[in-house]
C-alpha cells in the first residue's frame, strides 16, 4: 500500500542523482575494516584463526614485533587502499538489512505460491538494497507488470529499472 505522497516542483530534483555521502556508522565500519585488513596483512597467512571483529587488537597483542610492523605500515611502504572500503561498508550494511528482510520472507516458505525459481534468483543488491526475491514475491502476489505508456497505474514495484517511452 501507498500511504502518502508528495509532489516535487518540476526541476527541483537534480538531473542525475548522486551517491550518498557515507554516514558516521559507515565511516566507523570502514575504519574498522581497514584496521582489520592492516592487521591481517601484518600477520600474513596466520590470520585465518582469528576473528575479523577483534583482529586489530588480538593481532597486535600476539605479535612480538607488532609496534615495528605498525611503523612500517604507516611509513607508506604498502598503504592500504581506502577507496573501496566505504563501498564495502555500505554493501555490508545493506546486506544486513537485506538479511533481516529475507528472514521475514523465509518464514513464508511453505506458501505454495512460491516456486523454486523464485528463490533461486535471490541475491544481494547493495546499490538498491532490495532483495530480488522480495521483488518477485510482490510481482507474484500482485500481478503488477510494468506497463509503460499507461497513464493510470504505473509499473509495479518490481520495476527498479527506469523506463522511458520510445522517442
Amino acid at each position, binding site marked *: 500500500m501507498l500511504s502518502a505522497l508528495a509532489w*516535487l516542483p*518540476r526541476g527541483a530534483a537534480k538531473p542525475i542523482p*548522486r551517491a550518498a555521502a557515507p554516514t558516521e556508522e559507515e565511516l566507523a565500519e570502514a575504519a574498522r575494516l581497514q584496521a582489520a585488513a592492516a592487521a591481517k596483512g601484518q600477520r600474513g597467512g596466520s590470520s585465518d584463526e582469528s576473528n575479523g571483529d577483534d583482529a586489530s587488537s588480538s593481532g597486535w597483542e600476539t605479535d612480538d614485533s607488532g609496534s615495528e610492523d605498525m611503523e612500517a605500515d604507516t611509513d607508506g611502504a604498502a598503504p592500504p587502499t581506502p577507496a573501496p572500503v566505504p563501498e564495502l561498508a555500505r554493501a555490508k550494511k545493506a546486506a544486513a538489512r537485506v538479511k533481516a528482510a529475507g528472514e521475514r520472507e523465509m518464514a513464508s516458505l511453505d506458501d505454495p505460491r512460491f516456486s523454486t525459481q523464485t528463490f533461486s534468483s535471490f541475491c544481494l543488491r547493495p546499490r538498491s538494497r532490495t532483495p530480488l526475491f522480495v521483488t518477485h514475491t510482490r510481482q507474484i502476489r500482485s500481478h*503488477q507488470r510494468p506497463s509503460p505508456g499507461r497513464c493510470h497505474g504505473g509499473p509495479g514495484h518490481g520495476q527498479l529499472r527506469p523506463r522511458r517511452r520510445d522517442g
Partner: protein
Amino acid sequence: MAALDMDNYDREDETDDEEDGEGMDGEDGEVAAKGSRRVLDGLFGGDDALYYASNAEDPYMALARGAAARGGEEDADPATDAPPPTSDSEDEEAWDLRPSDFVLAAARTEDDVSTLEVWVYEAGARGGGEANLYVHHDLLLGAFPLALAWMDCAPGGAGGPERSNFVAVGTMDPVVELWDLDAADAVSPVATLGAGEAAPKDGKKKKKGAKAAARAAAKAGGPHAGAVLGLAWNATVRNVLASASADETVKVWDVSTAGGPSPSSSPVTTLTHHTDKVQALVWHPADPAVLLSGGFDGRACLADVRAPGSPEKTPAWGVGSDVEALAWDPAHPTRFCVASEDGHVTCFDARAGGGSSPLWTLGAHSRPTTGLAFAGAAAPGLLATGSTDKTVKLWDVSGGGSTAPVCVESADLRVGAVFAMGFAGDDALPGVLAVAGAKGTVAVWEVGASDQVAERWAALAA
C-alpha cells in the same frame, strides 16, 4: 503412411554415419578434417559460422550489441534504420531526470518492508502523446511511513537561497526523518528531528507509566511521543516544518538547526490545543504564521505559531467526526475545507471565527474522505476529493456559500482505497493529479482531459 516413407526413414543418417566413419578411419587427414568440419557445421550452422579471426568480422558481435541495447526485447521494430544505442547510453538517458519530468515521492509499505519511492511522470495525455509513469529509485525506510512533506531547505542549511531537494517522512516512530532525494543510494536520513531525545523503546513491554510520562514531556515541549501522522512544510519560511502526532500535539521545527554536529533537534513550538490524535496539517498559503490542524477530536483548529496562546482560546471548528484532511481554498484565502471520516467535506470561513457555521457541507463520499486538494489558480474552485470507497471526484465549489458544489467528474483510478492525493501545482501544466492507495500504485490523472472539466475550466484544456 506411404507419404511418410517409413521404410527409408533412417537412410540419410546411415549415409552420414558411413561418410563420417570413412573420414575417421581413412588415411587421408584431409578427409578426417572434412568429417570434423561437418560435425561442427551441424553444431554451429555452416561454413560462415565457425569462427572469425577478429570480432570486427563477426556479424554476431554487432547483433549482440543491438540485442543488449534493446534489453532482449524480441518485438523491437526491425525496420528502424537508426543504429541501436549502446546499453550504457540508454540506461543513462533513462536515469537522468529531464526538466520536463514530473517527480513525486510516495511512501510504500508491503510485507513489513517500507520504502520511499521516487516516481517520474512524463506528461502527454493532453498533447496527444503517450504518458509514462515509473519508479526511478527507492530508499529503504526503517518504519511504517505515515506522512510526507517535500522541502527545499537542507538540514543545517540555515534556510539560505540555495535550493535543495529533501523530503520529511513521518513514521510510526516518534521522529521526523529528513531524506535527501538527490542521493539515490542513501541508507539513512540526513537528519532526524526528535531523535536521541525520545524515550527508549522497550518493545511491547513498554509500561503505561513510561508512555504517559513521554506524552507529558511531549506536551511540555519535548520531542514527539507518538507516531507522526501529518507533516507540513512552510514554503514561505523555508526552514520551518510542522508535524502532527498521535501524542495529541503539533510541533514546529526549525530544520536549519537539524543535522551537523548534533543530529537531533528540539521543537521550537508545541501546540496542545487538540484533545486527541492530530493527523492533518496545512499552512496558510499567504500568512506563513497561520497553521491549520485537524484531529481525531473532530475539530479543525487555527493557530498562530508565533503566539500560540492557551488551548481554550484557539479558534476551532467542529465537524462531528475525525478530521482526515484539510485544504485552504486558493481562490478565497480565508476559506478552508475539512474532510472527515464520515465522508463529508465542510467549508468554513476563518473570518467568522471559531465555531462559526459552515459555508457549505458536502456529502462527498459514502466512506471516509481521505484526500482533499485544490487545483490551484489555473482552475479556481476545482476541488478533488478521494476516499476509501476507491473513487476520486472532482467538484466545482466556485459558487461559495450561494451555490451548492457540483460534482463534475468521478473516476475509479484503480489504486484501491485512496490514502493520499495531490495536484502537482505546476503553472505550466496545471491539473495533474496524483492518487495513491491500497493497491500500491500511483495513478496520475490529467483532469483537463475530461470534457466536463475542460468545459468549466478552459485553462486546463489547453
